[in-house]
């Protein structure tokens, strides 16, 4: 069983938002909404500043509160890679998942259903990388199978320091930031 995750090298990411453009065009994300976004986190006081730039999106948590809070089963773990997806025709738009996400990664699509990053599962199932990964000009994103010890992502995660976002929220996020 594959377990898809993503590693993003914060030492390479320059915050150019190409991933955002790629996502918007690939997935027809409606105007005014983002499935992925850039966060810039600065520590310190000028001139001693440390900056971390991250490309963020749904973390496809292994213990996803959006899945457990969904009253209809529309939010579910996909068979391929444990990707968290929303079945539009089962979603009633109750917003329990939106409120349950500690990352605020979800939004209500103007058509009424809950929407978010899908890891471009339609591309991944064809053997391609997600759109954001495929366009990154600095190649700072690695998408792959966390269960395969020989995958590029596993090797990176085993050899480099990394952190995930809000791990204390207890959702087991599957996006890791290499530092």
């Amino acid at each position, binding site marked *: 069983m594959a377990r898809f995750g993503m590693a993003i090298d914060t030492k390479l990411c*320059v*915050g*150019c*938002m190409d991933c955002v453009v790629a996502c918007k*065009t690939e997935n027809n994300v409606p105007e005014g909404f983002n499935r992925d976004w850039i966060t810039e986190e*600065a520590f*310190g006081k000028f001139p001693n*500043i440390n900056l971390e730039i991250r490309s963020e999106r749904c973390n496809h948590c292994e213990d996803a509160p959006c899945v457990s809070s969904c009253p209809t089963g529309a939010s579910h773990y996909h068979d391929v890679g444990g990707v968290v997806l929303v079945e539009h025709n089962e979603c009633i738009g109750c917003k329990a998942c939106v409120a349950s996400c500690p990352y605020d990664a979800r939004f209500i699509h103007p058509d009424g259903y809950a929407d978010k990053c899908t890891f471009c599962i339609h591309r991944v199932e064809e053997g391609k990388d997600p759109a954001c990964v495929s366009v990154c000009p600095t190649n700072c994103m690695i998408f792959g199978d966390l269960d395969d010890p020989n995958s590029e992502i596993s090797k990176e995660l085993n050899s480099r320091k990394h952190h995930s976002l809000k791990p204390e929220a207890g959702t087991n996020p599957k996006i890791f930031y290499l530092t």
Partner: protein
Amino acid sequence: MFRFRQPVVDEPSHQKPNWWIAKELGKRLGLQKYFPWNDVEEYLDTRLKSVGLSLQQLKKEGVVKAPKQPIYFEEGVQPNFWTPSGKIEFYSLQLKEKGFDPVPKFTEPESPPPGYFRLLMGRAPVHTFAKTQSNPILKDMMEENSVWINNDIAMRYGLKSGDYIKLKNTDGVVSSKVKVKATERIRPDSVFMVHGFGQRSRMLKSTYLKGASDAHLTTKYKLDPLMGGTAMNVNFVTFEREA
């Protein structure tokens, strides 16, 4: 590697292409001998001929790959610096002959007058110069620019991130309103803005007066006496509350 791009639609409303503007300017400056072409195809052909290709070939093949040539020192290039010695010259006899200091010295930029801040301008990765601001996807990602102000300065002036202010330069030019971004990521004596916003044409419906334009505030510039480069980050601005 050469790639060939062809226009899909004609330019709307008699807009003029870059090569034409350059040629017409050249004409008026009496430099027409440098602009021998009469249309874009002749222009491209002239340029391609200089590297041993032709437009005809590019049209036929679409992409022409030339053999890789080393360009880096690591790749075995013997650098040639077009100096009399052929080396990087820290002490330049050429400069001395022309009456300049042979070892150019750093001159401290002037400090802004009290209450003013040096206006720095730059780019955001989202937008290309001032021409993509109305692209719907890019506009969605970055609709307006903001003026970066050092946290301590912002606090002193009672400004918070998200407040709207106007900027006024030393020549009295006032910008359109622009959002404050109070941050530690800038020097206390300078403010920063992304270029390309605050567009003043009403025809640009989606970008009209969104953010402020650094270009309008750039009423002064400085010339490098050595090589003639223009420096534009030499203007000082102060804050005006958005009334």
